[in-house]
């Protein structure tokens, strides 16, 4: 189910070359966006002692950060639609850096909420979405591999950030660490610098050549450059159309988009809670702290390998046309792992669970954005990703607290695992059925389109 090439993007994506540099930059950006909140928890104890606050008060910092990162999606999309990926990512990197540097001089928890929570969170939002978007612009045939590699940045960054944070904290205390972390976050600007703009109007076909080519060949090459050209050409438009131009709300009429949205919103209810509670669960069954931390390391390592591998598998000719089924299978597999977790009571059982969990987690993450691109096409992906992240924001934040409530009420971790597992199996099944329906409708529409072959298609 490859989307038609020219009508979607207006040009042929390079599928290589500078694209690999873009993938590297995207993996850095995505890595920071996903792992920074997790790595930040090392400072909790110290800041709790210094500011004399409770654990829940300090935990709000990362919650605000996550919420802003996902909730800032639509703003990110609008900015990318207007200015392109590169300036947005560089500005995001600057914002992150400024946020953390100012956090180093904070004297109250409220200031920390603002500096670390809002400013850094928003900077990370401006990093995450454009990185994912630009992969769709540089890759088509090898897009799943590129997505898998870019998402692999997350576990790699986690494995480096966590010990680095600990080292910085031991050497410089929390204030010095925040200062240096601010500088490290500025590396997102480096990633942004790699995001060379690409598009039919900008990249390879120079204007003079196109004009002469137009004359010589008497044909028209569609231009799909920055939106503002179109605005100048078409003059006055009404407000709704203007909004649509920056953030494509017509996506809500897109069948594939709606299926993806509902399925993913449901999935995220049970996605992150098991990771949050894996170490406490291990300690609850009597395992010591270091072995419990080792479980998380196993998860990260398996995750690191699983993501690019999934990308390669998803790119193969058997899976790529039916990638939505593969995604639903990955989600259901993830759910099944959680449902079976309560059966694992020994340490070996938990190691097996961690490995399978890492595998399933990596599979889902690698294909998270690839499937959305596959459904809506790379041109509308910019708006789609923004709308999807703000919708997912609520369930992502609700997931771990609901799990926590279940644990506190029943005093047993198994209900949390059952809840997460069942939610994910449900989401996987839902996506499987609905995508089967979607594929059939798309095949039908393709057939209808082909029967009208005599009409010249205007792209």
């Amino acid at each position, binding site marked *: 189910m490859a989307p038609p090439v020219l009508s979607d993007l207006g040009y*042929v994506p390079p599928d290589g070359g500078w694209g690999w540099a873009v993938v590297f930059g995207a993996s850095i950006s995505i890595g920071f966006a996903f792992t920074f909140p997790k790595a930040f928890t090392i400072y909790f104890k110290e800041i709790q*002692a*210094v500011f*004399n606050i409770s654990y829940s008060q300090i935990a709000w910092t990362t919650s605000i950060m996550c919420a802003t990162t996902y909730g800032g999606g639509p703003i990110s999309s609008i900015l990318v639609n207007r200015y392109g990926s590169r300036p947005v990512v560089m500005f995001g990197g600057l914002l992150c850096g400024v946020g953390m540097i100012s956090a180093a001089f904070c004297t109250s928890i409220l200031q920390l909420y603002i500096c670390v929570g809002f400013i850094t969170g928003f900077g990370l939002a401006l990093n995450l979405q454009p990185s994912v978007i630009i992969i769709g612009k540089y890759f088509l045939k090898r897009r799943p591999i590129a997505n898998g590699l870019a998402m692999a940045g997350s576990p790699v960054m986690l494995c480096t950030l966590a010990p680095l944070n600990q080292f910085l904290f*031991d*050497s*410089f*205390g929390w*204030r*010095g*660490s925040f*200062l*240096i972390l*601010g*500088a*490290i976050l*500025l*590396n997102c*600007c*480096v990633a942004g*610098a*790699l995001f*060379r703009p690409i598009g039919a109007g900008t990249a*390879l*076909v*120079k204007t003079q*050549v*196109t004009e*002469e*080519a137009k004359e*010589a*060949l008497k044909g028209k*090459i569609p231009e799909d450059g920055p939106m503002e050209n179109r605005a100048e050409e078409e003059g006055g438009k009404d407000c709704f159309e203007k909004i649509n131009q920056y953030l494509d709300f017509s996506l809500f009429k897109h069948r594939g988009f709606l299926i993806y949205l509902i399925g993913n919103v449901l999935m995220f209810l049970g996605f992150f809670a098991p990771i949050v509670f894996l170490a406490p669960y291990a300690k609850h*069954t*009597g*395992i*010591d702290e270091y*072995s419990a931390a080792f479980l998380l390391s196993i998860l990260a390592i398996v995750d690191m390998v699983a993501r690019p591998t999934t990308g390669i598998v998803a790119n193969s000719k058997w899976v790529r046309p039916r990638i939505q089924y593969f995604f639903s299978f990955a989600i259901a597999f993830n759910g099944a792992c959680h449902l079976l977790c309560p059966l694992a009571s020994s*340490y070996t059982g938990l190691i097996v669970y961690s490995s399978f969990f890492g595998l399933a987690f990596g599979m889902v993450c690698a294909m998270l954005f690839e499937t959305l691109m596959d459904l809506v096409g790379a041109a509308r992906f910019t708006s789609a990703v923004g709308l999807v992240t703000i919708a997912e924001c609520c369930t992502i934040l609700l997931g771990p607290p609901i799990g926590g409530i279940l644990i506190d009420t029943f005093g047993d971790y198994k209900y949390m695992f059952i809840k997460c597992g069942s939610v994910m199996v449900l989401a996987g099944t839902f996506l499987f059925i609905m995508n089967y329906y979607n594929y059939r409708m798309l095949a039908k529409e393709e057939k209808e389109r082909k029967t009208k072959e005599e009409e010249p298609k205007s792209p």
Partner: protein
Amino acid sequence: MPPHRGGGRWQMGRAASVISRPVASAPSPLLMEGLIRSQGHDWEDPAMTTQDSSQTQVNSVTKMQPGHESSGPHVATQELKPASKEDSVYEIVLSGAPVEKNISVASPTKVELICKLGEDSSLKNPQVTWKKGGETISHTTKTQNSWSIQLTISESSQLGSYTCILKGEKELTATFHLHVPKTEGREKPVITYIGDTAVMVCKTEYNAKAWTWYMTNGTELAPINTILHTDKFEIMRKSAKVSRLEIFKLSKKDRGVYWCEAVFDLGSSKARFELKVLSISAPLKPFIAVVAEVAILVTTIVLYEVYSKRKGKVNQKKTLLGDPSSSRQRSKPQKVSKRFLERRFKPREVENITKLQKMYATMHFKHSLCFEVLYI
């Protein structure tokens, strides 16, 4: 390394940490168990109480022995009434290897120490001695398979190590270490900056009567007087178990080791903190290094892009003009000079040839354009 399966039995690890080897969960002749049963101490973990119900068996042991008077090594202690009426019973079940147990005693209390033989142990009717240090304790009590002593701890001198020795074919020993509760400090140094505020939090598991903080002056410890220096130090007693020292307006002179001391009825225990005061330049160096690295990388990438764009433009110009050195050229028409033609051909033929040349040039141009457009 198999994980330590302390699990549900060892609730308050700190107060009664068992120095024992990892256990197999199946009972065997080498089974070692230590059960802690304690009432009256202020346990922080509410789940502890659920464990208490399983200890009724041990409880009944104490109730069976009201008639047996325990005598500690100091007869005088028998007359002293303990400050609290709670009973604490500690039991060790013996097997092959010597077992030790740490017990925290905060306030004067009655303590019963029991040494019990495992069910499958091969020792029959051993001779049991209880010792503290080198002294033997008399007046021990014996039940079917366990030997115990009852102590009333009311002075710090009564704290120490009590050993029970079972002599038979083999000799089995078990030791109970009674000591004042330990306080928890920080092993890693507390790092602060000049002008900042330092916070040190000291914790213990039992209610302390008083807290004192000391700073080191050379080799001696000087207590910190908050009344004298109200703008510099502040000690807050957050609860009976937590004390908090804040030092304001730090300078390099405040560096060093600080001690917090928790005073209990039976003694006191100290915890150590190390304070490091850095100047702002310490993290500034890595900060500037990273910012420089970012700036260099960004500049390099941008310059490389500008360079490659310029190269691309030059290449395209060459394509348009039919330059033989540019890429993506097929058979290029050689531009022959007019003079060369005039020498060899008649004027009309020269005209035709130049016309042909121009035609070929435009055709080639269009041809190469097609290449450019379609094959980029």
